[in-house]
């Protein structure tokens, strides 16, 4: 135990002190912040108002266009050729030409622009045209716009999960996202830090340190110390990321929130009449919040930690064995494939089958097999999993990582002292049965 602890310390300290670790720890949250900030910033940058000249020959739509922050509509006078000339001399964004049109089949409407117009401009104009033309048609056929608004209905199903403990309103969106986030973190962690284990072993092999090491430490102790040390490195990095990015987020959010609030106030006064929509929004937010509240947080966090560590240990041992079996990283491909396939598979399947049917047979079996259960069970957990399934899946995962660790330790023990030998699967299977 003492020696595992010593190995653990070394693996941890050497990695945490590396420049790349420090750089990644600082850059990670900054990148995240960039991902959040850049789109917002870009949106603000493109906020300058575009002026659209409107030449309305039909006489139907004059003055009907609502200018928004993005688009400002200005009427111009025809004929078309002169309007075109004038437009070319102006710096306006586009010229909209509405000829005399048949209301039932409006066609021939054209948008002239010097630079090609963006999709958002076109859709916004199309939407306004459609609305206005429809309004005119309603008026002509004698339907009152108010009556129509009353007829429009928005349906929002409230989902309630019914169990022995009574009913709980649940929100499928929230549950899926909670599960997905957990599964994604597990997936990421296994890949990034599993590969680090493998690289660490290969490095030890190429630097020829292993024979010195194993004369004072059991190979198993060496492997266990390394796997746990790297896990601690990963956890430290995640923790620092969370702390740093929430600090950045808090900073950014507080400066943005003020603006957003004032924006919201303006739009509130502008859209004072649309109370109904607000009520609906409020209802939606409420349902999300209650969805969050109804998530079994202790179970989720507990499950996450268990499957996180279990999955990492299961795969970590295998990554270590692969590192021991090869001489360089380029040789590792053939052995990496069977390790990465179940991981990738469970993640792909997760997004389709399991999200659609979290209690179906595929989901069930994949949450039992230890190689896929960390990701799949994490996805299913928020939807409610019968206790016996959870217990069985956890027991199988424990059995699974004990088995892979045993297997990996045997390959590791032989592999670390083999140099310059191309290894195939047959050779590996022989190693399993070498006597101590």
């Amino acid at each position: 135990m003492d020696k595992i602890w010593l190995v653990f310390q070394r693996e941890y300290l050497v990695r945490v002190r590396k420049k790349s670790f420090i750089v990644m720890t600082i850059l990670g949250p900054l990148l995240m912040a960039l991902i959040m900030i850049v789109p917002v910033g870009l949106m603000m940058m493109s906020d300058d108002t575009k002026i659209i000249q409107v030449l309305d020959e039909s006489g139907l739509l004059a003055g009907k266009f609502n200018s928004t922050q993005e688009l400002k509509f200005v009427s111009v006078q025809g004929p078309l050729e002169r309007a075109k000339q004038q437009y070319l001399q102006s710096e306006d964004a586009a010229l909209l030409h509405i000829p005399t049109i048949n209301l039932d089949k409006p066609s021939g409407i054209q948008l002239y622009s010097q630079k090609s117009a963006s999709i958002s401009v076109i859709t916004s104009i199309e939407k306004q045209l459609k609305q206005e033309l429809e309004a005119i048609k309603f008026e002509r056929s004698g339907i009152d716009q108010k009556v129509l608004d009353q007829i429009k209905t928005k349906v929002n199903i409230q989902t309630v999960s019914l169990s022995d403990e009574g009913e709980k309103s649940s929100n499928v969106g929230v549950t899926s996202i909670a599960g997905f986030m957990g599964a994604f973190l597990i997936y990421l962690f296994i890949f990034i830090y599993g590969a680090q284990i493998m690289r660490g072993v290969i490095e030890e092999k190429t630097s020829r340190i292993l024979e010195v090491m194993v004369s004072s430490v059991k190979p198993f102790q060496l492997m266990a110390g390394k796997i746990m040390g790297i896990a601690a490195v990963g956890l430290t990095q995640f923790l620092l990321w969370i702390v740093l990015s929430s600090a950045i987020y808090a900073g950014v959010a507080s400066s943005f929130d003020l603006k957003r609030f004032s924006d919201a106030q303006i739009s509130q006064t502008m859209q004072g009449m649309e109370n109904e929509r607000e009520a609906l929004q409020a209802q939606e937010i409420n349902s999300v919040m209650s969805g969050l509240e109804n998530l079994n947080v202790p179970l989720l966090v507990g499950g996450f930690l268990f499957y996180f560590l279990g999955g990492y240990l299961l795969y970590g041992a295998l990554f270590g064995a692969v590192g021991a079996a090869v001489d360089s990283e380029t040789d590792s491909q053939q052995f990496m494939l069977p390790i990465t396939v179940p991981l990738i598979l469970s993640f792909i399947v997760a997004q389709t089958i399991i999200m659609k049917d979290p209690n179906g047979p595929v989901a069930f079996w994949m949450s039992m097999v230890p190689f896929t259960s960390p990701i799949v069970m994490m996805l299913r957990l928020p939807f409610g999993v019968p206790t016996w399934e959870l217990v069985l899946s956890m027991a199988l995962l424990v059995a699974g990582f004990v088995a892979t660790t045993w297997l990996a330790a045997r390959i590791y023990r032989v592999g670390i002292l083999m140099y310059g030998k191309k290894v195939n699967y047959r050779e590996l299977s022989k190693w399993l049965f070498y006597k101590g």
Partner: protein
Amino acid sequence: MVPILQIQGVSKRYEAHQALNQVSFNVPPGSIFGLLGPNGAGKTSLIRIITQITGPDEGKVLFEGQPLQPRHVQQIGYLPEERGLYKKMKVGEQLVYLARLRGLEKADAQQKIKAWAERLELTTWLNKNVEDLSKGMQQKVQFIATVLHEPRLLILDEPFSGFDPVNANIIRDEILRLREGGCTIIFSTHRMESVEQMCDYIVLINRSKKVLEGSVKEVKTVYRTNTYCVEGQGKLLITSPDFKVISQKQAGNDFSAEVQLEPNVGSNELLRYLLDRVEIHRFEEKVPSIHDIFVQLVTQPQHG
């Protein structure tokens, strides 16, 4: 005196390859013990069994009369032929780490590292990364790592490879000094001249079997051929049936020759025979070198 190490009928198989076949010998305490053999003879397999990296299929290894146990790791220092260090680690930290894995306390280790670094002129390098050191320097660090925990038994596999002659001498002196301090050294090498220079006892392993064992003196006595080198002035002409001339050179009035005595003939008889005929400048028994014995044993056809 109880041998520090007893190898008793040790065999080891890897698949179809027999690495060791019923090897037995004792290592007397306080000696420098040469473990010799051509490449692939089974030396490394045997060393790995002694250092408990692997275990024997058959047979026993006793350390000071007791079966080998994990706690004996602290009494043994091992410098493998394939050796290296963590490149991205500072020299000092690395030495502390390796010493602690061998059971030393941190403060104790640091003190000893300081002393050794001064002896081998490494003090200024303790805070450098290993990758910044020259190969010879790294070898010195490895040597320190091997002896830091003051092992009772030191196993050195090709300890001089990678050293220039000056540093090789420094290391040789350190090895001899450790022996004075009561350490037993098992010395595995292909350089026969250093065996001749340093070893008290040798064992020769060939094709997984022990083929020779004993003190260097005994071995040489066993393999002596009763051949003498003679040099002097005069015309040498040996006609006696007691002596066989193996080679002879005559340059003007000077001669040199190698003469083998027939069994039951003493060297004095040859001397007496020569005294009457020529003037003798040199008369010396031609003792076989360990190198000769090694080559002779390893290249002779296998029996059975």
